[in-house]
């Protein structure tokens, strides 16, 4: 139960000569793995750091844990400066991607360990361990060694070890990525339940946007060491602040088209492959407030927001493949050389031939689902 504040947090790793693959900025001192990270985490909040591999999520988490030195900026837990505080004195606990259960100890000993180190009373330790085991459903494995557990069970034990001490902050670094898809979904649900039962602040790292969207109160999207956007899952889904966030959040990915934004007397119209979409009041006001002028833009529309249409003001396309997903169909279409995905509910499709490859489909979309990104900065022109 604590607040965590990251102020201009920065991490520079010393340059290693054999590693040139990253896209990170290099400074005189080394590679900039995390730059200018600002975030105020509220008490009891569940924060998810998400981004592609190498974007600095783990580095950020490890700086909060104290396992990595903070190059610049300030880290506060409950308004106490933590930069120079050792991990053991930060009152945090952490779940590692590969569990890191101590192999020479039984499950019970593993879970007791943090409390034993704190020299807590035996009755207290037993009570806490049994409670945690109960919550996680691992009571019957308490006397086994880790090697006799399945991946999912190990993960529970790792979580158990992290929650017995009732830490101020619970850190998790890709805790589910070693599990198979089914188990992952199940554990995700369990983490949600766990979250309701224990009162602590969570920071959770994942590269899986579905995990981020389902777990987080707020999610932090990172790329190349730089925070791209912070917001609730709904916010980042509805209002992605730049092209990267737009493409990263949501499956299937948002469709992007080259388009032209035209301004005429404070009224904006966007033109995509001959189709004209006049923007509504809200968008007009926001664009005007930002002083946006006529320009080439990247237009983003989510697959689920596209509708099959008829008439003149449409985009004409040809179906490449269609994937029947049950209640909906994903149509992969090509229009003027640009590919897009359209999600159509199965009942709309019934009795039509649009599912055959080679079929011609016309589509359009309402103005409120259009996202406009500057070609130059890749930022959303509305924000």
């Amino acid at each position: 139960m604590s607040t965590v504040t990251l102020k201009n947090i920065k991490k520079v790793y010393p340059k290693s000569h054999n590693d040139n693959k990253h896209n990170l900025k290099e400074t005189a001192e080394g590679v900039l793995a995390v730059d200018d990270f600002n975030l105020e985490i509220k008490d009891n909040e569940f924060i998810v750091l998400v981004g592609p591999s190498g974007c600095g999520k783990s580095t950020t988490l490890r700086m909060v844990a104290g396992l990595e030195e903070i190059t610049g900026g300030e880290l506060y837990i409950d308004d106490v400066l933590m930069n120079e505080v050792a991990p053991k004195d930060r009152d945090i606990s952490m779940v590692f991607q590969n569990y890191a259960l101590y192999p020479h100890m039984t499950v019970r000993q593993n879970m007791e360990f943090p409390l034993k180190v704190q020299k807590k009373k035996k009755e207290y330790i037993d009570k806490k361990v049994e409670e945690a085991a109960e919550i996680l459903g691992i009571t019957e494995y308490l006397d086994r060694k880790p090697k006799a557990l399945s991946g999912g069970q190990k993960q529970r034990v790792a979580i158990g070890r992290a929650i017995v001490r009732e830490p101020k902050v619970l850190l998790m670094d890709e805790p589910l990525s070693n599990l198979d898809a089914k188990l992952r979904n199940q554990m995700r649900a369990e983490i949600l339940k766990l979250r309701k039962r224990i009162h602590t602040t969570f920071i959770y790292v994942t590269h899986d946007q579905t995990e981020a969207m389902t777990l987080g109160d707020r999610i932090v999207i990172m790329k190349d060491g730089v925070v791209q956007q912070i917001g609730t899952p709904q916010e980042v889904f509805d209002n992605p602040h730049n092209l990267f966030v737009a493409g990263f959040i949501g499956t299937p990915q948002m469709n992007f088209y080259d388009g032209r934004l035209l301004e005429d007397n404070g009224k904006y119209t966007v033109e995509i492959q001959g189709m004209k979409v006049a923007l509504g009041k809200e968008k007009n006001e926001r664009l005007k407030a930002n002083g946006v002028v006529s320009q080439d833009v990247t237009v983003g529309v989510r697959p689920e927001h596209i509708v099959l249409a008829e008439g003149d003001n449409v985009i004409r396309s040809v179906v490449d493949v269609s994937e029947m997903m049950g209640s909906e169909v994903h149509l992969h279409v090509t229009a003027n050389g640009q590919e897009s995905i359209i999600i159509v509910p199965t009942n709309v499709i019934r009795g039509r031939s649009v599912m055959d490859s080679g079929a011609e489909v016309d589509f359009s979309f309402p103005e409120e689902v259009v996202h406009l990104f500057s070609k130059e900065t890749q930022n959303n022109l509305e924000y």
Partner: protein
Amino acid sequence: MKKKHNLSYWLMFVMMTLIAFVSFFPFVWMFLSSFKPQNELLSMPPTFFPENFTIANYTSVFKQMPFGQYYINSLVTAGLNTLVGVISSSLIGYIFAKYDFPFKNAIFLVVLACMMIPYETLMPTVYKLMVGIKWTNSYKVLTIPYFVNIFGIFLMRQFYLDLPDDYLEAAEVDGCSQFEIWARIAMPMANSTTSSLVIFLFMASYNSFMWPLISVDTRKLFTLPVGIASMVWDRGNQYAMLLAAASMIIVPVCILFAFMQRKFIEGMTSGGIKG
């Protein structure tokens, strides 16, 4: 379930049996002969099992020299040297593997270089040093030079290099001090490597001959190898008694092996880390 064994299996089997026989036979011979009187031992043709069974050889070992004292000297020094040697190797190896400090690699290179120098070349210098600080003819000279073992450092470092940092970081987050991380997590996880080091260090100290021979010259401080050698010099032809002494010398080593073998298998734990 029956498994078919091919020719190479049987060849291997025969080879192994031969090797086991060749290495084990002298010990059997030694043990059986230690119960023969001297004249039977030297008789032609030789007997395999003792025909005139006697334990006189054993009793005279204790009568004719302070064998019990040698035994205690050997066990105490070897035990202490092993204990301290294992701890120091483990700690120093851990530091070389897991910590960064200035000139780490250079220092390690120097340490390694010391391992390359033959022990015999170092001995005169170390001896002069011991004379200089007046440690000769004391338990100090039989123990302290054994407290740091470079091979041990190297062996433990190698183990800790392969030990994933995650365990140590987990322990750190769980509240351990730097020393506790080593003592409660790293050291126990090195169990199987440590067991082999225990055997190695015990043997190295228990069997060492040259060093105790030159650095100690009072009988009270003799270790078993020196004691036995002195027996050869004093009573060179008492072979039966020698065999009795030799049979008793190998007992602690056998016990240690028997005990540590179990530990080896226990130590082969893994599976806490997925990867």
